[in-house]
């Protein structure tokens, strides 16, 4: 785990007094995705050889095999493809969040990613509903993309 910023980690633990959210291993082709998230930007990998977006980040395009992989800035808007409300968890962090929503979000850029839907009443969750990204700061200079119901007119 790339938790280099220990001072920051300690600050979050003390200030929130709850166990930390499980964090991704960033030692892979997706490192830039997590770092950009800390700047409020949602990146999606796109192949410059075949012009297609894909998910998850990989060193080579899974459509054509090219190493010419770049990133595009996503709008942060998407549609709920499917979701579930988790009612039980053995994880120290998620136990404090029950019940919470896990969803597959179809981004407007044509890829489907997993996330949580937050700041949204669980009973309004629907397949097909429009959602928008927000970011939760995390230790190590990264942030975790989350989604919420899209505000009217967005």
């Amino acid at each position, binding site marked *: 785990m790339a938790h280099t910023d220990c001072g920051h980690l300690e600050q979050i633990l003390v200030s929130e007094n709850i166990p930390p959210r499980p964090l991704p*291993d960033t030692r892979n082709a997706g490192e830039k995705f997590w770092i950009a998230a800390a700047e409020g930007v949602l990146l999606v990998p796109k192949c410059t050889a075949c012009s297609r977006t894909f998910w*998850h980040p990989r060193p080579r395009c899974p459509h054509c095999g090219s190493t010419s992989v770049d990133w595009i800035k996503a709008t942060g808007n998407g549609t709920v493809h499917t979701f*579930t*409300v988790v009612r*039980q968890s053995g994880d120290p*962090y998620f136990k404090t969040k029950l019940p*919470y929503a896990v969803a597959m979000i179809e981004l407007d850029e044509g890829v489907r990613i997993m996330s949580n839907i937050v700041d949204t009443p669980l009973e309004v969750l629907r397949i097909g509903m429009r959602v928008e990204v927000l970011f939760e700061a995390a230790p190590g200079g990264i942030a975790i993309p989350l989604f919420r119901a899209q505000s009217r007119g967005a």
Partner: protein
Amino acid sequence: MTQGHLSGQVSVVGAATAGIGWDTRNSVSEIMAEAANKALDDAGLRLAEVDGVFAVTPYYWMPSATLADQLGIQPKVTDSTNIGGASVVAHVGHAVRAIASGQCEVAVIAYASTQRSDGGKLVTGADVLPYERPYGALFPISGYAMVMQRHMHDFGTTREQLAKVTVAASRWAALNPEALKPEPLTVADVLASPLVSDPLRKLDICLVTNGAGAIVLTSTERAKKLRKPAVSVLGTGESHSHCYVTNMRSFTATAGVESGKAAYEMAGLGPEDMDFAQIYDAFTIMVLLGLEDLGFCKKGEGGGMIDAGIGPGSRLPVNTTGGGLRYCHPGMFGIFLLVEAVRQLRKECGKRQVETARCGLVHGFGGVLAGNATVILGVDT
């Protein structure tokens, strides 16, 4: 190339279970070897004749080597392929090819786990995709819950229809002396059980038990000289469409479409020829998807087929043991699907016997609908 020339070349000649229960005292390797030995006894073959070893379990890093070590044998063919709960069903296809090509003569396929004794939770070697780790999806429960949600949305499948899968399983379990949960259940019972990951409830989920199973295969030519009716492997197919939920191409269809097509083509048969189906049921939605993707009904019509009945006395008997939902579920359930199919085709099933059983289908799923393997078995009548 068509695989039809392999159809019927190899037969299952032994099948057994061992250590099924809540409080097994023996180790995983011991009950796995016990199942293998009992399957060999069932076949009337000696341990020294085994020269192909196929095994899977989340407990050991080289399962086929663990099994051969415990049995005290050195095989010519070894296979620990792991595609989750579909693994041993895929092993059948591999064993058919090894035996038909002369690479080995007698193959054992085995699975074991004591996960009930080891904490009562699913024991799995599953890893987590970094892009899923921060979000708290329960593995594999939330994945299946999202599949259920999407299927209900797209096709109008109801909670009641899915609950009926558990109810049918309880009716089969009541006829199975080996079943660990033979108590009757109603749709209301299932819908009153606690939500775990909406819309999936506790009674949509399999048991967590101990247990082991094994089957023995050899050439059909040799099988005809053995004491029990030869159960021929008529068709096999395997595939995986993804590993992680994030990369599922569809939340309503599986690679069972492809593995099933391969098995039917090899057998020269179709779903209408099957007298029963054993479809891996760690979650109720898996049975519905299996019925659709293996061609027993059209996509989206699985709910209606379940309404029409999959329990005892139905047109297509499904999961005649009570399945992972009510019989036993030591993790990767595939071996128990195979053992039951063999017992049905040999007419060894007592009260739960499907009288017309001449040909049946086994389908294993692994992970969150990732691994898929299909086997078609049949007997001469």
